[in-house]
């Protein structure tokens, strides 16, 4: 990562100034403010952090947040990969149609889509009705379960994954697969030895994007999930809205930030994000 940063900075510095200023005012200052509050509100010291780590509930919420994000990342990757693959490889009218559908849902707000799932998965929704009609009685509880919230989050984030994958896959030359076949590779072998590795940057980009976005999810788990599915963003919200505990909330935000950065430092170290993007 060091080398790419130094490469960036070698350009004419003045061109970076507006962006740097923007980052400073709208990102670094508020971030610093949060960090400051976590150590000063209500008392100076690490009290907020001690409180957080000594609460098994809060630590559980943090772990659950990472676990949920990992599951959502994995499932959205599994579902998104074939969609992006078909769109990129076979293009044409069907490929364009797929992308339009994806983009449309991409443009629809998270909140709207979350409420849509509430209706669809609800007791009076079409899924339950269909299950009843098939003779499943009494119908299983779908809404307000871990499944519902994970499912909906996967759906909400899939466009990110699909579009990121597609951007990389579209640039994979079709002659690579022909060349592989010509050299004796059966379709599956050609896919695993050529296409999959070449699409890795897309997988990495998409996973990082989805994982990080998912860490901050707030509304969806609250509206669709069971109370046990609480995620850290929801916890932070509660702390501010219900307890007016700004210091505690700030400390949680900082813990989330540091944990996320730590995780990606590890990831980058072992999987070489730098190399993937070369």
């Amino acid at each position, binding site marked *: 990562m060091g080398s790419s940063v130094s490469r960036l900075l070698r350009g004419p510095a003045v061109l970076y100034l507006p962006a740097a200023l923007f980052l400073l005012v709208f990102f670094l200052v508020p971030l610093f403010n949060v960090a400051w509050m976590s150590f000063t509100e209500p008392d100076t010291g690490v009290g907020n952090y001690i409180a957080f780590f000594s609460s098994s509930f809060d630590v559980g919420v943090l772990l659950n947040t990472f676990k949920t994000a990992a599951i959502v990342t994995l499932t959205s990757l599994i579902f998104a990969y074939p969609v992006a693959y078909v769109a990129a490889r076979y293009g044409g009218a069907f490929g364009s149609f797929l992308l339009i559908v994806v983009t449309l849902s991409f443009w629809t707000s998270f909140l709207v889509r979350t409420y849509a799932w509430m209706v669809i998965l609800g007791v009076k929704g079409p899924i339950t009705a269909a299950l009843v009609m098939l003779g499943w009685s009494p119908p299983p509880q779908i809404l307000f379960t871990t499944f519902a919230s994970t499912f909906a989050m996967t759906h909400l984030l899939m466009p990110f994954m699909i579009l990121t994958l597609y951007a990389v896959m579209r640039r994979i*030359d079709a*002659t*690579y697969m*022909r*060349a*592989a*076949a*010509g*050299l*004796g*590779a*059966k*379709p599956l*072998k*050609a896919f695993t*030895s*050529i296409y999959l*590795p*070449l699409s890795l940057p897309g997988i990495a980009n998409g996973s990082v994007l989805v994982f990080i976005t998912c860490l901050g999810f707030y509304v969806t788990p609250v509206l669709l999930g069971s109370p046990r599915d609480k995620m850290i963003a929801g916890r932070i919200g509660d702390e501010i809205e219900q307890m007016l505990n700004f210091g505690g909330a700030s400390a949680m935000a900082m813990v989330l930030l540091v944990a996320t950065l730590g995780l990606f430092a590890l990831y980058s170290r072992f999987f070489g994000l730098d190399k993937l993007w070369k």
Partner: protein
Amino acid sequence: MQPRSLILTDLVKSYDRRTNAVDHIDLRIEAGEFVSFLGPSGSGKTTTLMMIAGFEQPTAGEIKLDGRAIEQVPPYDRNIGMVFQNYALFPHMTVRGNVGYPLRIRHMAKDVMRQRVDKALAMVGLSTFGERYPAELSGGQQQRVALARALVFEPGLILLDEPLGALDKNLREHMQVELKRIHKELGVTMIYVTHDQTEAMTMSDRIAVFNAGRIEHLGTPTEVYFKPRTRFVASFVGDSNLLEGTAGKGGVVEIPGFGPVATAATDLAPGAPALLLMRPEIFEVVADGEGASVTGNHLEVADVVNYGDSLLLIGKAGGQALRVRVPSRVAAGYEAGGRYGIRWNPANVQVVGG
């Protein structure tokens, strides 16, 4: 490596069901031959190659490899080496990784594999480049890696689709020589697609001249150049003067304005239309000349183009546009506006299709 023979019978490919990209092609390639597909853009060369390799399905016709029909054989089972125009080197593998790929697919033992890769890399002169990635190689080096990868599994038939298209002239000529050397060394059958006629002339045992999905002429470079079957072949291969006239007696053809021309043909039916091919280099330019005869005429030069090793005189003779090529000589002093005598040997004048 056992060279393989190939027979195409009445091969047709239509992408849109209205026009034939490949239009009833018959071709027989002997084991060990070097055959070029020469033709203008869009004439069906790549399409034919793709059908042989198995990436496109023929609309009709038959492809036989070593006497065995292969339409039903998928590309990964055909065991044909292929060099793509853009090389298609796998960017995430080193040179060794690329060249070793077909061997890994075939689950070859590690040490045999290392040996074979070493040998293939040595053959293309890239022994010290094994650990590089394709992006770290020049165009010519990439081309050679692609070639090594296509021959490392000893396929017996190698297809090359304009492999030298992207290279500069010097490298191109160097690679032409290398390719021919490898062809000789391995004794493998090679099909070489190009739209560069010089390349086809210098490298091939035989040339198939493609036009609009058909093979207009299949023959040795000498035959294709000196005895072209059709007007298209005559004009596409090499520089040419094509003169239309009417056959007279004893192989003489009467060209309107130009006069009678003695030709190599002897069996022309008097009165029949005849198309003459007079290559620009068959002419001898003489100080003045004896005037028009069956072996000579006058050239009024409108333009002189200096090619370095030769001069092209562009002008008119008896009202017919004529191009005459002469070796460069400092003392020659040909000038635009000049009038010179030209002479030819009837043995060098061909009747196209005759």
